[in-house]
């Protein structure tokens, strides 16, 4: 058996927010044994004005020893409880994080609601979902006891530039280095990079290279193409309708997104011609000894703000499959299999939105999405696959939100007498209301979080 870490250096190409994120993560993880070097390149993409994360990103931040409150404080952050989707005629729905309620008598929580709904005497689902109620009303409930209700989960809205800077500081703090700019990558055998020639004339050799430049090689072999990229127009906006939700509107041929930061909002309009490059992902984002992570591996439209999640997919897959030395074949194959699966599922989730909004073609019978839609329509069963970024609850919210109403419900719900089911749902709604009342307004949370701080002996929050 071979022992000892033989990965002496990892070179991160791209002084981007993704590059610094990878560098910070790896430097913290591999600290003593592996040198992490960030190499700026001429292709480096700038940081987007705003980023949004999913609750699962917290695991990555935790692993770096970063507290999300500190992060929010440093990055004009707000806590993201979900996405508010505005539809035509003033209608809207929320895709919150976390679960609505516990299952009962072997049937999922929503099935009990569905049963009463199908039988014709029940209101909407949203009032049963604490996360959705909080997201819609701009509230936040960090960690309170909520009698019998699943605790709402949350991600973050962040300033992209501030996040990049924060990650740079973290990376350097954990021992990562920044090299001179890249002049040219020197190719070796078998798709491998032999070394990086830098502008200061030095050659930098590493055991593994990460492409975090944020620019994907269009139509490279193995590129899974998903159409021309839409034009993106970012602007700053002083309206702050709601700090707890990303606001999203699907228009005829555009998406209009409002991301609330502390004190200002960022608006993103995405659509129409004039976008740069293509959408899609690399089926083999690890080739030779070069691993593409983030937008260099996968580019999707901004619906549900997938950018951070895309970077997270690559980083987590790499974490599970860190190679050791030059023979990286087994790791490479598995990495490419799991990441391309995850990118496909993420793209599917966006497509699900569009199909249900009537803005994309219905899936073909053998499309994995067809099964998700059919199963839900038939009996409210939520199907997910390996490699999903959004869990069953998110799928549930999207399908119900777009008005996909199952024809039937789980017959196991009938083991609860209808009267009892009705009163339990009512109790549940009351509990949601009570919990929402104890929650803080996020404007208030932000005011305290972002207040200029006096140093106190205890520091921290």
């Amino acid at each position, binding site marked *: *058996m071979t022992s000892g870490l033989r990965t002496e250096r990892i070179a991160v190409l791209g002084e981007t927010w993704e590059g610094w994120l990878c560098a910070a993560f790896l430097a913290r993880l591999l600290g003593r*044994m592996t040198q992490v070097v960030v190499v700026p390149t001429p292709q480096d993409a700038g940081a987007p004005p705003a980023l949004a994360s999913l609750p699962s990103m917290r695991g990555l931040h935790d*692993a770096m020893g970063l507290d999300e409150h500190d992060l929010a404080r440093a990055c004009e952050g707000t806590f993201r409880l979900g996405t508010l989707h505005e539809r035509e005629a003033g209608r809207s729905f929320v895709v919150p994080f976390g679960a609505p309620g516990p299952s009962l008598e072997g049937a999922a929580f929503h099935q009990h609601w569905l049963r009463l709904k199908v039988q014709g005497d029940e209101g909407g689902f949203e009032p049963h979902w604490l996360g959705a109620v909080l997201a819609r009303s701009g509230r936040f409930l960090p960690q309170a006891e909520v009698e019998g209700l699943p605790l709402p989960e949350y991600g973050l809205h962040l300033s992209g530039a501030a996040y990049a800077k924060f990650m740079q500081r973290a990376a350097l703090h954990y021992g990562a280095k920044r090299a001179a700019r890249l002049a040219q990558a020197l190719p070796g055998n078998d798709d491998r990079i032999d070394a990086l020639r830098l502008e200061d004339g030095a050659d930098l050799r590493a055991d593994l290279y990460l492409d975090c430049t944020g620019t994907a090689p269009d139509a490279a072999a193995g590129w899974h193409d998903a159409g021309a990229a839409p034009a993106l127009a970012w602007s700053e906006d002083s309206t702050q309708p709601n700090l707890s939700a990303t606001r999203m509107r699907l228009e005829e041929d555009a998406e209009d997104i409002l991301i609330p930061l502390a004190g200002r909002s960022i608006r993103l309009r995405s659509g129409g011609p004039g976008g740069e490059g293509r959408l899609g992902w690399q089926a083999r984002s690890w080739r030779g000894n070069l691993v593409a992570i983030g937008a260099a591996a996968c580019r999707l439209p901004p619906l549900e703000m997938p950018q951070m999640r895309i970077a997270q997919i690559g980083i987590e897959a790499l974490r599970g499959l860190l*190679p050791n030395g030059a023979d990286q074949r087994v*790791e490479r194959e*598995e990495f490419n299999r799991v990441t391309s699966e995850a990118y496909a599922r993420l793209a599917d989730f966006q497509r699900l939105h569009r199909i249900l909004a009537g803005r994309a073609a219905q899936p073909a019978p053998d499309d994995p999405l067809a099964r998700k839609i059919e199963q839900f329509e*038939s009996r409210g069963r939520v199907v997910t696959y390996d490699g999903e970024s959004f869990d069953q609850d998110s799928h549930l919210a999207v399908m119900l939100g777009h008005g996909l109403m199952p024809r039937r*419900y789980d017959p196991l719900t*009938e083991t609860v007498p209808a009267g009892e089911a009705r009163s339990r749902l009512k109790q549940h709604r009351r509990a949601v209301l009570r919990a929402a009342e104890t929650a803080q307004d996020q404007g208030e949370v932000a005011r305290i979080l972002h207040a200029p701080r006096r140093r106190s002996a205890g520091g921290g929050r």
Partner: protein
Amino acid sequence: MSAAPIGDVVIVGGGTAGWMTAAALSRLQKGGRTRIRLIESDDIGTVGVGEATIPPISQFNGLLGIDENDFLSKTQGTFKLGIEFEGWTRPGHSYMHPFGSYGHDAEGIRFYQLWLRGRAEGRIPDLGEFCLSEAAAYLHRFLPPSRDPRDVLSSLAYAYHFDAGLYAAYLRRHAEAAGVRRTEGKVVDVALRGEDGFVRSVTLASGEVVEGDLFVDCSGFRGLLIEGAMEAGFEDWRHWLPCDRAVAVPSARTEPLLPYTRSTAREAGWQWRIPLQHRTGNGLVYCSDHLSAEDAEQTLLANLEGQPLGEPRHLRFTTGRRKEAWVGNVVAIGLSAGFLEPLESTSIHLIQSGIHKLLALFPDSRFAEIERTEYNRLMALQFEQVRDFLILHYHRTERDGAFWRYLREMEVPESLRRRIELFASKGRIFRHEDELFGEDNWLAVLWGQGVRPEGYDPLADTLSKEAVGKLLAGTHRAIQSTAPQLPAHAAYIERHCAARPHPPETSS
């Protein structure tokens, strides 16, 4: 508008599958519109084996509201902490596939990766010594796990051994109490509806015609409805799992009472040993191309630890699965849906999983195609995952002889090849969604069958040598000092769930 719910459910067969199904579906009757009826024939016995289980069985019992001690005392049941595989890797070798986990993770790094590193750097105890279930099993001790995750006792996991006939009888009482109607009689004819080819009714030898909306075929290997009437077809997996016969015989209980199943590799198959309170169940599973029935019987009888109690019974089977377990209004559950040999005691679990999925996709009178295809897809996946796990045991072996050589050299499914390769490289194991066997199960068998990783996850090097050493030593100490303090298996049973001295006759 919802279609009318299913009115009459007819279960054909009263073996383990039939009664498990009846007991679980009985709750549907609470809605007041569904009636459950079970038909079984006293002339046609049940298969009468199937006495070892895996941990998820406790969820099934929980769903039915079954009290563990009551259940074990009425089925001559014992606890099972794992399976010992003797001679599988090579003659003279043995390993345990324990339930429960190995050590605990540190800094997000899997315990087994830290152990692999520790091993690369010096002499450390065997993997199994870091698993409480295994340590307790070899000491013949047992205690249910603690719920406190900080307590080493929480890492224990277990299943049961029980008398198959008594288990079916136990579930029968449960189902009948919940209103399931039982009819004794042999099905002699099946009538199909002209318009859609669905089963309309079955006719019993008495002449009685039993109509139904949904038929669950629990008739055993013969697949009376699913194959006999619906002609679902069978996918044969004998090229990967060539055993096709078994001979079984009970023998007298021996002391100490082991809390695990033993599986011993033999020349052309393997032998099981399942300890119950009143007797030991034994059987030899073999491949008829390589061993005659007489030789099989002799091998079995020559390798019993206690006196045989009765005549050996011979069984035939074909490994594989029904191409579609649900056709029209017939759902096959149990042996009628397919068979995977009992090497990892998965058949009863496949019954449980079939029931669970049937409940999740329970049809109404319209019988939407989409529920049927989904059921078939999920069951096919489940069978395939278990199949891969079984093949691993046979494939990674150094045993000699034509039977074993064939297995070692055959081409395995791609999904399994990839798993072995990932483990062989750096000891990595990834679990798929919905997969029955998890990382620790795969680890036990991959390592046990002699797959040795070339390296380990480089992340394990991020901890200092001292930290890893301390963690391994601490875990080892905790487990090795806890195991001897647990009560003896036999004593625990005596105190909590001893069977009454004269067990009732089994129903078959």
